[in-house]
């Protein structure tokens, strides 16, 4: 292939990646955007060249190429199994896992380039390789811990005194090793130092994610996603591949911005998420707020709720993680359709961090065929909450807790919430009186206009659908 055509095609690849990300940020074009990015990837594969300029696919077939073919096929099978067999509720874990694999691959590629015996490399290239090794392996181990936390293993933050100091020391050793290796890229000591660096980076990924609570994993995954992007870009520098530099950098910078957007939605600075061990300091104080003493919650039965809903004009449904756990999204859609038939206006209020990942609720409701124009974001729906007749809270907790507005001592004070308490009546569907992920009491449950409908969300919703049909 002529080098001019290849250069032009690489520009095309970069444009397709940028366009893909752009299209991914609007609901109407998102699916197309994903396909556009995949098309860019295909072209990048076809025009793949070695660092020395040789065209990869015109070399004679060798055992290494057989390994490439087998490895790629294994990856496709593993990827397809993961992508298509996973439940919609477990999507966030899947993204974490794929991200970890990408990080691991980035670290391996950089290591293999670095320890190659017969080459002299510039300080800049050595630095890129070390950066990719460090960030890639950190992203690998960190993503696996994030995956495990989302699977329900050691969800609670794991902390001990002096943890941040220990982590800081490890980081210092890592940076020292990087400095040493950048200057002494060859020799027996270098290989040993490299292996130590690799292991420390893996350990650091674990140590970084362990103290962070399960509720903050979306932010962590987004951050590690942008880390992997940067590691891939550094690999691109190391093996002189422009498409990798562009793709990795785009992911790195857009991922960083996405991470900040997520933190903004929770009204917490990113440093607080990463180093704060949420709830460890404020949890106890939040739970013991005095003015709840003596107040009790008021339960309600499904038949009564059905009547309220059937004769309402405006209903807002606030879904949360409880809906995901109960797999109740299809029942919710049935209820919403049934109410729609009776002329009730039904909207879904989506908090940016409801569920275990931003957009988690949208994905689940979309799976159940709820049209996305019925889903309204928090900022858009809050001004109209006073006019809403019934607000149905399904398995959501912290995102509707008015303590965020009223209670200065609460750990979630200042977090934007869906102001469910302003609706004429509020029905909270819940399994039990357990506290939410943040581990604090919900003041909403004790308000005069709130009724509690206890039970499994799916069973309760099915009872509601039947009762609405009958009324």
């Amino acid at each position, binding site marked *: 292939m002529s080098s001019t055509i290849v250069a032009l095609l690489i520009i095309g690849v970069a444009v397709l990646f940028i366009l893909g990300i752009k299209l991914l*940020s609007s609901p109407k074009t998102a699916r197309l955007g994903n396909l556009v990015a995949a098309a860019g990837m295909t072209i990048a594969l076809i025009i793949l060249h070695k660092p020395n300029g040789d065209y990869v696919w015109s070399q004679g077939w060798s055992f290494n190429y057989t390994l490439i073919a087998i490895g790629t096929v294994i990856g496709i099978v593993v990827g397809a199994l993961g992508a298509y067999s996973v439940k919609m509720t477990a999507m966030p874990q899947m993204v974490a896992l*794929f991200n970890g694999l990408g990080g691991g*691959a980035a670290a391996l590629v950089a290591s293999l380039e670095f320890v190659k015996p017969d080459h002299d490399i510039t300080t800049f290239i050595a630095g890129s390789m070390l950066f990719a090794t460090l960030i890639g392996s950190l992203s690998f181990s960190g993503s696996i811990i994030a995956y495990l936390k989302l699977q329900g293993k050691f969800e609670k933050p794991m902390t001990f005194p002096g943890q941040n100091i220990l982590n800081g020391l490890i980081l210092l050793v890592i940076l020292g090793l990087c400095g040493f290796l950048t200057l002494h890229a060859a020799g027996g000591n270098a290989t040993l130092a490299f292996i130590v660096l690799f292991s420390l980076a893996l350990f650091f990924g674990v140590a970084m994610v362990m103290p962070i609570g399960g509720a903050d994993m979306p932010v962590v995954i987004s951050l590690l996603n942008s880390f992997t992007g940067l590691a891939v870009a550094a690999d691109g520098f190391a093996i002189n591949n422009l498409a990798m530099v562009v793709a990795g950098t785009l992911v790195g910078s*857009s991922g960083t911005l996405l991470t900040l957007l997520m933190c903004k939605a929770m009204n917490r600075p990113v440093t607080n998420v990463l180093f704060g061990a949420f709830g460890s300091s404020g949890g106890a104080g939040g739970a013991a707020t005095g003015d709840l003493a003596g107040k009790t919650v008021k339960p309600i039965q499904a038949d009564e709720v059905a009547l309220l809903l059937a004769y309402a004009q405006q209903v807002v449904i606030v879904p949360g993680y409880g809906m995901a756990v109960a797999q109740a999204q299809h029942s919710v859609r049935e209820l919403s359709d049934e109410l729609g038939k009776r002329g009730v206006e039904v909207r879904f209020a989506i908090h940016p961090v409801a569920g275990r990942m931003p*957009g988690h609720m949208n994905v689940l409701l979309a799976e159940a065929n709820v049209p996305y124009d019925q889903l309204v974001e928090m900022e858009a729906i809050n001004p109209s909450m006073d006019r809403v007749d019934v607000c149905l809270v399904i398995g959501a907790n912290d995102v509707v807790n008015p303590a965020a507005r009223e209670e200065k001592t609460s750990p979630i004070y200042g977090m934007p919430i869906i102001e469910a308490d302003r609706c004429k009546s509020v029905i909270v569907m819940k399994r039990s009186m357990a506290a939410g992920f943040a581990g604090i009491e919900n003041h909403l449950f004790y308000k005069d206009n709130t009724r509690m409908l206890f039970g499994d969300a799916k069973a309760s919703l099915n009872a509601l659908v039947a009762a609405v049909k009958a009324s």
Partner: protein
Amino acid sequence: MDTNILFIFILAVFVGFEVISKVPSMLHTPLMSGTNAIHGIILFGGILVLADAATPLAQALGFVAVIFGSANVFGGFMVTDRMLRMFKKKKSP
């Protein structure tokens, strides 16, 4: 040192920031998943190092890198598409 590649790197940083500045939160997860697939381009890095691998150890590690990268890129695009297939507009009656 080739400064052109640094130049492109800096431009890409800014493009990445600008291109997603306005994203509705409903698309945060699919967007993360989509960009996750894009960094799966590391598969090609794996292919390049494995193609030139000279020792059994390099072949073994390169092989693992190709499997990881391949799962990242193919799984990433597939899982994103599966999420996005569900965003449908209400059919007009």
